């Protein structure tokens, strides 16, 4: 069922509650609230119109271009968010996010859903968005963890080197910790799914008129896609970063801000 524009306006009236509370507490968040909601409305309106256009056109070239835009957007957002500043980061992030989605998306489209046409915008864009968004967040966490763990444990790293460890052997404990820190919360979320919370996509599908049974199948598929993509992206990002982080004698290269 569609929501009328008046209906939407009434929904926004709910914001009077937080505004009243802010006033009562003399909390200076009203300005931020108006900025945040205005931005959201404008951004979503633009993206909604644009997505509707993409879905209506449903042209493969257009969809693929949009996929490339989404990927670049994710890479630059991720790079901006990382505290690690290195020139070599950009190709690494492109490779990590790109490769993981290049593997996961074809499988989902060509083997699992098999829509007509295969690169139907209706399937590609929302699923790719979820996969990419999660990969991006997870990569940020994994890389930050790797770097901070490394800086906290130089002595361990140098000791391993001085005992004859290869670069891989000396960095592996840190690598392992970073991946663990990034993936464990996701596994816990997956384990609580359906009991604690109903995932957003599933809720949306049910509201949009799909049967709950179809919605859970999509949810299961999407979780498998997201978790595989995230693991692959984390692994590739750190693996590639590792190769550029050290010189040929396995000693750290300078250049961190």
């Amino acid at each position, binding site marked *: 069922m569609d929501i009328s524009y008046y209906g939407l306006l009434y929904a926004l009236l709910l914001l009077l509650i937080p505004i009243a509370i802010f006033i009562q507490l003399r909390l200076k968040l009203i300005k931020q609230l108006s900025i945040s909601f205005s931005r959201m409305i404008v951004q979503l309106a633009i993206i909604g119109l644009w997505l509707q256009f993409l879905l209506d056109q449903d042209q493969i070239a257009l969809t693929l271009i949009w996929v490339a835009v989404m990927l670049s957007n994710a890479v630059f957002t991720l790079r901006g968010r990382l505290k690690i500043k290195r020139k070599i980061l950009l190709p690494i992030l492109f490779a990590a996010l790109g490769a993981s989605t290049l593997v996961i998306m074809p499988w989902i489209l060509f083997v699992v859903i098999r829509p007509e046409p295969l690169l139907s915008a209706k399937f590609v864009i929302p699923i790719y968005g979820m996969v990419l968004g999660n990969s991006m967040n997870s990569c940020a966490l994994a890389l930050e963890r790797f770097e901070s763990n490394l800086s906290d444990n130089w*002595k*361990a790293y*140098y*000791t*391993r*080197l*001085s*005992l*004859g*460890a*290869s*670069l891989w*052997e000396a960095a592996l404990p840190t690598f392992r910790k970073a991946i663990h820190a990034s993936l464990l919360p996701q596994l816990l979320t997956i384990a609580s799914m359906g009991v604690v919370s109903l995932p957003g996509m599933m809720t949306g599908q049910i509201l949009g008129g799909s049967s709950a049974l179809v919605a859970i199948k999509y949810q299961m598929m999407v979780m498998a896609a997201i978790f595989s993509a995230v693991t692959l992206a984390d692994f590739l990002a750190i693996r590639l970063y590792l190769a550029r982080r050290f010189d*040929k*004698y*396995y*000693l750290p290269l300078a250049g961190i801000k």
Partner: protein
Amino acid sequence: MSDFLHIKISRLFYQDKHLVSDIDLEVQKGERILIVGATGTGKSSLLNTLNLMNQNYNGEILFESKAITQYHPHVLRSRIVMVMQEPWLGEGTVQDVLDEALAYHAIKHKDLSDRDRQIRGLMKSFQLSEDYLSKKADQLSGGEKQRIALIRVLQLRPEILLLDEISSALDQKTSGIISDCIFQNFPGTVIAISHDPLWHDRWQRSWIISDGIIKDNREAK
């Protein structure tokens, strides 16, 4: 004519600072060498060049007539092994600590058939009972940690042992035990930095660094 280890360094640096010039030293197999000099003269910087931990110099170091930079770093570092001032042992038991070092790639091909006997022998000569193998490494005292760090290295049977002030944080007695043990148990080459006077009278040779030059003193006791 030594082709074991030949250090030819025209200029040695620490970061941008020029420390020592014109180093040309040959080391024979089995020699025991002590590096002496005031703080900041470049003792550690020099020692660290030998296992590829420091590339901040002009010159060349030959190990068995081949430039050390031509070796795979992990292979070289399993033949020329360094023990540091404050040992890092990691988590787990002493046995885990010893096993971890042995698991590294470059050591794997070595003959380990009598390893347990070797470890027991080393523990005994370092005056540690075998019970220590099951103790948590992070609960040991400083002196015990340093002895385990040495056993960890000696079990690898390196050809050259580099010791960077390993007894500076230890009491005289422990320092004495450690130096006795190294001399008794390790037949290979040792190059050590130490400020401990106890150590100074048992080396065949010393390298004295002062005013940016290194003096090779073979008359050491």
